[in-house]
């Protein structure tokens, strides 16, 4: 690679950042309300609908969209396609932040947040959720470890703590250097571990609903739901990288990385194709296409998911012209990302309808505030990190 990753060194406070702040404050107030009045105080969750927006979006969608981390790591480091290395760092950062916020979202959602550590000591290996939780916990730490070299690269030899803390400069510098040196030797273990853990919990997130056959609409309830979740995580990884890299490079005014993104989309045609094949095949094998014309909100949501989230972007990417245009690639990638988001929302919210006691569910404003607040905070931290750490490719223009 010609240019290497570097801190952005750009102005941090922009109008966009101020908008983020507003959402963060609204989210913060809602979270305060949740911890004073209880979950019921700010949500529309009921005994029939124990999982709503927070599980469907903050957790399930968050995990799916963080798939860029392990898919790029697999490509660049395991399959040895070093050409793609420039995108591994931003993808790694998104994954690390994504999973951090999955856990933060869980802390708000579970009733006894202070007891979140209990699964470490009370194992129920029959529980799909137990496996998901363990994988997410370990993977989060793997991601942090994978990120240490980025921090080390920036601060090695220039640890400069303010005021009285400066006595620790030497010590911290040493720790950083040692950690970096050790990690350099064993990083491959963490990279493979990250991919293995991802495959495990990405698929198991789909297994979560297998225990509730009467509640999930047959268009989504299938024994191969875990496989579909895994395949869609594979498929959404690179589009997510395209999506965020394009947004980052246009909002930070960086060089476009089309030379890397275009070939990534060629792999996406293949991965999305497999997902589509299984998803449609499953529909035909189980004969669930008979529901398609029901015309209710559930089946319509399925049609939108399949058409706009899978089939249209797949066909788009078949055309070389689309793959080579920045606009085209970005549009297709956004559709795929949207399709997977809608899929997770469909499985956990729209398609979920307990037959005995359902009373309908639409998220309360408080739920939206918390979710939007978490997303805004994530973007805020992302911006903070890329401003000061070497994550994105340095631009050629002189930093302002």
């Amino acid at each position, binding site marked *: 690679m010609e240019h*290497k990753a570097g801190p952005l060194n750009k102005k941090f406070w922009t109008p966009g950042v101020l908008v983020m702040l507003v959402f963060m404050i609204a989210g913060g107030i809602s979270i305060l309300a*949740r*911890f004073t009045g*209880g*979950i*019921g105080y700010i*949500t529309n*969750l009921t*005994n029939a609908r*124990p*999982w709503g927006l927070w599980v469907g979006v903050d957790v399930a969608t968050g995990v799916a969209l963080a798939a860029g981390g392990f898919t790029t790591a*697999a490509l660049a*480091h*395991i*399959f*040895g396609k*070093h050409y793609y*290395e420039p995108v*591994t*760092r931003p993808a790694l950062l998104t994954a690390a932040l994504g999973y951090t916020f999955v856990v933060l979202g869980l802390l708000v959602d*579970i*009733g*006894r*947040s202070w*007891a979140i550590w*209990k*699964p470490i000591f*009370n*194992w*129920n*290996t*029959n*529980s*799909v*959720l*137990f496996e998901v*939780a363990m994988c997410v916990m370990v993977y989060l730490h793997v991601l942090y470890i994978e990120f240490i*070299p980025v921090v080390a690269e920036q601060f090695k030899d220039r640890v400069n703590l303010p005021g009285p803390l400066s006595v620790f400069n030497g010590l911290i510098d040493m720790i950083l250097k040692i950690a970096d040196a050790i*990690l*350099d*030797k064993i*990083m*491959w273990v963490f990279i*493979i*571990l990250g*991919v*293995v853990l991802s*495959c*495990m919990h990405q698929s*198991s997130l789909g*297994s979560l609903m*297998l*225990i509730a*056959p*009467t509640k999930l609409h047959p268009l989504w309830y299938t*024994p191969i739901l*875990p496989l579909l979740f895994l395949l869609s995580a594979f498929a959404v990884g690179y589009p997510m990288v395209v999506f965020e890299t394009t947004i980052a490079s246009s909002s930070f005014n960086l060089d476009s990385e089309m030379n890397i993104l275009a070939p990534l989309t060629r792999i996406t045609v293949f991965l999305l194709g497999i997902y589509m094949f299984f998803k449609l095949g499953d529909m035909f094998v189980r004969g669930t296409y008979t529901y398609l014309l029901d015309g209710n909100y559930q089946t319509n949501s399925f049609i939108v998911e399949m058409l706009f989230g899978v089939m249209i972007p797949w066909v788009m990417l078949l055309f070389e012209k689309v793959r080579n245009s920045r606009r085209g690639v970005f549009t297709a990638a956004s559709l795929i990302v949207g399709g997977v988001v809608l899929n997770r929302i469909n499985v956990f919210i729209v398609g979920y309808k*307990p037959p*005995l*006691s359902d009373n309908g569910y639409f998220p309360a404003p408080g739920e939206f505030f918390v979710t939007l607040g978490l997303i805004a905070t994530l973007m805020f931290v992302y911006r903070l990190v890329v401003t000061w750490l070497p994550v994105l490719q340095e631009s050629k223009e002189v930093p302002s």
Partner: protein
Amino acid sequence: MQLSRRSFFKIMGAAGASVTALPPSANAWKSKAPPDPYGCLVDLTRCVGCRKCEEACAEVNGLPTPERPNCQCIVFDKKRRPDDKAYTVVNRYFTGKLDQFDKPLPTYAKVQCMHCQDPACVSACIVGALTKDETGAVRYDATKCIGCRYCMVACPFEIPAYEYHDPITPRVIKCSFCYDRISKKGGLPGCATICPTEALTFGKRETIVKVAQKRLEENPGKYIDHVYGEKEVGGTSWLYISSVPFEKVNLPVLSDKPSPKLSETIQHSLFSYLWSPLALFGVLGALMYKSNKNQGEPENKGGY
């Protein structure tokens, strides 16, 4: 990144060895139901909707007094569900049955946790806070619970309720089968002792199933020929017999397959002894080693 030959083979060897040493047990899924649990029969033809069971349940379990305890009128206008204040409720249904004067006949149905033989909630609970006891009772241990509410997602009868308005220590709320009472010799559940019409019959599940079948045989034409709960989701401790179709009184049509069977089979065939993750680790490791060797010196500066 450096991938030293030695450390690579050491770790890969360990991964490989554990895969071959512990082959995935090809065991088929087995029921974990207790051998001789208690059961309770609800005979919907006998229930008159007096709601005494609601009151007794509240009393023995220290719950708030039910809404309008002596009312058999407007409480029935809405369909109620067990919630965070009540383990059991009785609902009234008009199913189209008429009496001799062509007036619609009500059917009353008590609803509470079914204490499934292979409960979805127990399988789902992330920390094992829910357990199936030898008595048949599905018990809840609030000290383990983290409040993930996956048990509520899993339950096919939509039973567990949640204390949504407790900010710090909310609990899952459901019928306990009066474990503290039935685990003692001769103990009976609060609701079953009070029922004036003997619509509720408590005993060993095996005996109760026979009692139910006998009633069906001895009263031809009176009952639907089905003991609800004998086979549903692999069997439940609470059983129902009725003269009106069960789905009309909100007892759902369910398959005989135990609810946790599919997910547990998938989980265990993939993850027992972590064989598949280890195998995947091995395959990916080999790929990584190969691709890094082929590329000559492993380029590390651009990535991690």
